[in-house]
Each structure stands twice: as C-alpha cells, then as structure tokens.
C-alpha cells in the first residue's frame, strides 16, 4: 500500500506570512515628553526668542513720613534665543517592490520613518541637555569613582537645589493609602535616567528615612508615566535605554573602568522644544511618476523642524553618576 507523503507530493506553496509584524524594539522617549512645547510662527525668521522678566526688588523699606516717593525701579528682562534647524530622512522604493511585495511595504516603511523622526526629536533634546545643563557629580554612592554611583543624598541634594532655585515641580504628591507595602509620594521633579541604573535604584540604601520607592509601591499609579520606575525624595525617575551614557569614561584607583550616566533632573519649563508653524512632522510620499523617464521609483520621507533652548537654567541639573553593579547583559 502506498502512502502519499510530502516527499512525493509536497505542498505547492511552502511559506505563509504570519498575520502580524513583529515589534521593533524602541526606547521610551522621555525627553520630548518632559520638555515644554512652543511653536514658532511661519515667516518668523530663523531664531525663536524667549523673554523672561526679572524680579523687581521687594520694597521692604518703609516709606516713612517724609511724603517723598522712593526712586523708581527699572524693570529688566532676560532674553533667550534658539535657532531653528531642519532634519529629514527617506527611502527610495522601486515600483516593483511596491507592486510585488505581499506585506504592504509602504505602510510599514511609513511607520518606521515616523518612529525614526520621533526618536530623532528625542535624541536631539537628550544631547542638547547634556551640552546645556550644568552638572553635579554624584557623591552619595560608595563605589569610589568620581562620580560615584547614585545615593539617596544625591537625590536630596539636587531636589534641595531645585527647590532653592524655586523651580516648579511637575507632579503633585500622592497621599498614602492603606495598601500593604505602599508609601506616599512627594510632589516631584522628574529625573530622566537610564534603564541600566534600575538595579542600582533597587539596591539603594535608605538615609534618614528617605528611600527609593518602586512605582508599584505607590499608593496608586494613576499619575505614573509608562517609563516611570520609582521615586526618591522629591524626584520621580523615568528610565529609558537611550539615556546618555559615556562608556568607560572614568577609572578608579584600582584601574577598573566605569560608565558615566547623565541623569537629568528638571522642573517645568527647564527645556523647551520649538517647532515652526506646526512643522513638526511631514510625511512625504512621491509617486514614481516624479522619478524620471520611466517613472520607476517612489519616495517616502519625513522632514521636521526643531530648535531647543534652556529656558530655565535654574530648574535643571545633570547629575552625573557611575553604576554600582555590573550589568548582566
């Protein structure tokens, strides 16, 4: 008796595309989330200008009984300029790809271009913050490097600095609730940090009753951002794998290298992202018709305009730190 097998009668078509695309690993984009957003008008020149009035001297000297007015004050202001820059990228796709490919290449390339553009916005802001914001070296850790790993006192110090500078916090506090293992959360600034430091946060030793509180130990997490890892003192920590790191940038007295992490702690309006006339996202598709005698190639591209400015220098600090423990990757 003969059995028909795939050896004698193989399937005519050997492959079938799975119904959904696999995900593309993409870092969380914290910098664009936290920045102030401003739109510069069309026909507004190359440079966006901000104005911040200076405080007037409080009149703490009494008038007395002379009937004479005190001298007038002269108001002053600070001016901050930022120059617009344009960015873009794209793909040239032959019509045969579009015609013959079975998985909608234009759709997923469009999506990839859009994500690349948003990621560029975030990376530009990230690097700008590294350049523009002043720095504190962490000293509260115990690993002996300069900077040290992050300690509780580093959080306390930078929160104290921003409070003393009258920076505005982003988040109001979360009152404690009768939930096992939870604790109240103070009103907070944001720290934009690296996912590589999460194990350090987990091992952080409490000082003077101040400790690291995991996001899942908040009384409730309705106000949490997706990338929020936890809280220390007046700082809520957002992590991303694209946070700025200088690899092997310091060495201790044993000769061991360590990476330097830029943990950006900021209040409201510290950094501003500027677009021009809503020119924040242009997805441009050009039909093959435009590509030459035989109209063979379509193009898909994204283009955007962006500037950025340090708009409240007193409301931001980069806390540089190293890492306590080696990564297990």
């Amino acid at each position: 008796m003969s059995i028909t097998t795939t050896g004698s009668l193989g399937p005519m078509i050997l492959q079938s595309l799975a119904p959904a695309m696999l995900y593309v690993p993409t870092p969380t984009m914290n910098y664009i989330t936290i920045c102030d957003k401003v739109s510069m008008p069309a026909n507004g020149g190359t440079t966006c200008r901000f104005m911040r009035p200076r405080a007037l001297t409080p009149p703490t000297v009494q008038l007395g009984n002379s009937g004479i007015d005190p001298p007038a004050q002269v108001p002053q202001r600070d001016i901050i300029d930022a120059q617009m820059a344009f960015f873009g990228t794209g793909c040239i796709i032959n019509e045969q790809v579009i015609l013959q490919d079975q998985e909608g290449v234009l759709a997923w390339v469009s999506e990839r271009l859009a994500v690349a553009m948003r990621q560029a916005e975030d990376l530009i802001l990230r690097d700008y913050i590294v350049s523009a914001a002043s720095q504190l070296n962490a000293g509260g850790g115990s690993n002996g490097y300069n900077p040290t790993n992050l300690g509780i006192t580093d959080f306390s110090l930078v929160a104290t600095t921003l409070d003393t500078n009258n920076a505005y916090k982003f988040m109001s506090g979360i009152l404690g609730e009768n939930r096992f293992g939870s604790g109240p959360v103070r009103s907070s600034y944001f720290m934009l940090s690296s996912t590589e430091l999460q194990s350090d946060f987990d091992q952080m030793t409490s000082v003077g009753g101040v400790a690291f509180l995991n996001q899942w130990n908040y009384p409730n997490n309705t106000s949490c951002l997706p990338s929020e890892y936890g809280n220390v003192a007046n700082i809520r920590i957002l992590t991303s794998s694209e946070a700025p790191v200088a690899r092997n940038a310091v060495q201790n007295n044993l000769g061991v290298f360590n990476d330097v992490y830029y943990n950006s702690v900021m209040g409201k309006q510290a950094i501003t992202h500027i677009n021009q006339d809503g020119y924040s996202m242009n997805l441009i598709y050009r039909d093959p018709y435009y590509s030459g005698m035989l109209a063979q190639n379509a193009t898909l591209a994204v283009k955007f305009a962006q500037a950025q400015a340090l708009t409240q220098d007193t409301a931001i600090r980069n806390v540089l730190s190293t890492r306590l423990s080696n990564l297990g990757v």
Partner: protein
Amino acid sequence: MSEYNKMAKGRFTATGTSAVVQLPFQPDFVELWNYTNIATAAVNSVTRAWWDKSLIVANNNPTMIELYSASATSLVFDTIAGSPTSAGIGTFSAGQLLQFGPIYKHESVASADFAIAKSGAGGPTTVTTDTAHGLQSGDVIIFEGLFQTATTGMPQLNYVWFTVTVTGATTFTIPWDTSGANYTAFDSDTSTGNIGSWRKVLYPYIYFPGTTTISGITLGSTTTIDTTDAHNLVVGQEVAFRIPNQWGTVELNALPNTLVPGSPVYGYVIAVTDYNTVVVNINSSAMTPFVVDQTVASVPGLSYPQIVAVGDVNTGGVQISANSALYPPPYYVPIGTTRVNTINGPAIQGAFVNNTSQGFTIGSGVAVVDGTATIMQAEDVIEWRAFYHDISLPN
C-alpha cells in the same frame, strides 16, 4: 545618467595634516589632489589620494595615494592604512554626543604610555606621549584614572573635557594649573598598576553655547574666566556660574540671591579673548579667590566649577568679513580665535545652535611604504571631489 547620486567638489588650504569637510551626505568615494605638492614635486610628498568605502582589505579601509617618495622626478603608488591610529580618508557623522576615540593607556597599543608633568603656576600642564599622539590643536580629550599611587597622581583631571594645544608630535598642553601641592606628576608606565588613560572626544561641540568647566578665575572690577575647553560664548552672552564650595569663588553663583530672593544673578560677556577665555561684567574684587588645588581624597563626588550660557542681549547676526558669506552662519571657536562655521543659516549671535554635521575627514596617517608622507601639510592647497553613487558594486 543617474538619478539619486550626490556629487560635490571644493578646495581648501590645509591648516595641518588633517581636515574636516562638511557635506550634506557621507560620500562613498573621495578623490583629492594636493596642488602644492604637484607644483613643487618634493620627495615624500603626496600628489593624489583616493578612497573607496567598499575597498576593505584585512578589515581595513585604506586610502590609496600617488606620491613622490624617494625621488622628486618619478611618482609611485602607496597606501595609508586607514586604522583609527593611522587614518587616511574616511567619513563622519557628527549627530550624537558622547562618542570617543580609542583608549590610549599602558600597552593598549605599542608604546602608548604617556606622562603628565606638574605645571608652573597658572598652567598649562604638559602631556608627553611615548609615540606620536596624532592630535591637532583644538581637539578635545578626557583623562581617566591618573593615579600614580592609590592616593597620589592627578585624578582631579578625570573626565574633564580638555582642549589640547599641540606643541610637538609627542607633546601637547591642557589648560589646567597642576602646580599645587595636591597634584603629583603622573606616568602611566611607572604608576602603580599603570592606572591612567586618555581618549579623544570625537564631536564635542554639537550644540553650543552650553556648559563649560572653569579652569581659572581672575578677580577684579571685571571677571576673567578661563575654561578647559572652548566656551563658544560671544560678546553679549548672558551667563550663570555654578561654583561648588571647595573651589572658592561661590559669590559668583547665580543663586541664592540674598537681596532679591529667588532672582538669579547673571553676568554678561563683555569681551572674548580667545577660545577659552572671556571677560564678564561682574565686579569680583571682593570675592573669594578661585582654588584649583583640589585634594585627591576629595575626588569621589568632586563636582567642577562651570560657566553656563543662559541667554544673550544681541539683536543681530554674525557680521560679514573678508571672504565670508553675506549672511554668515553661527560659528564655533575650537582653538585660539579660529572660527569654524556651522552649516546653518544666519541666527542671532549667542543663540542656542545645532552644530550637527556630516561629510568626510582627511587623517594624518603616513604612507605605509614611504613611512613619512602624509596626504597634506599646513599651507597645502587641496582640490577635492566627493561622490555618493547610485550604483556601487560591491555596495
């Protein structure tokens, strides 16, 4: 005929043995002619060089050259290896910060040891390398370690961004005063455990103006600030100071303000002396002197004094000058008073500027067989063409 390729050409006069050419693309083929060497025909001089991105030989991407080697009457062919330490032509993409070159430390490559001598009062500090360092004045480097013993050396210089001034093939200086008692001469060859290294910061000025480390403060009716790398400030720039307690001149700090609580105290730049010196309109005569002699013991957690650009009072862009564009772009000053234009359009002077760019570089590597010749020397006139091809086989 091709549709999407890119072509560019240009000419420049070399300022050293390496150069950067900014383009709207990264080429896959570059060719250049050294007109000066063609016209003068001297031994050990390169007349032509060309480079193809797709030519990979033993994991290397060499540059091909034609040169007068031992004879000034006959041309020969040679190559420049193309490794990071012996670079010919290559491309660059300066789009992200915190990128560094290879580490130079004891035995990282042959004879990579280096020594840092204590400076005279006021600096600068001299670094001597065992073999050619390959740096150019204006390059920025970081140091790591620098422990002569576990408790001595110069670890106070760790991860500070320093602009180098090249004084010889194996010597350069950094703008820091190491004459104090807390600094001990460092030598990577003799230090305990050979703990110390340096690396080049590849793209230090992608955004400016920004935050810069202060290396010295001269007090007076106006205040003179020296920095460790280029400040890129302009006259009219509004600046703030962050001076940690142990560095002395804390009175410059923007906050706290005792008279108008909460109102930051800023200064304005009234003169730019050079790449790392500015004069600010703050009367500091009665302030505490700046202290650069920090102890080794203080190093874990030591924060550095900084000057921060926070605004400007300018209303116009960069003024035109001889050979400049009619509407000059913002520029940065990596060394001395040398201006390097960005690829932007005009902006208000002192504005926060994006200085990302791409293009190709010409390195200072020497010809493999000749052993002496580099693609160019200072004052050489270079003609170049760069391409990005529609079709490149192999890609």
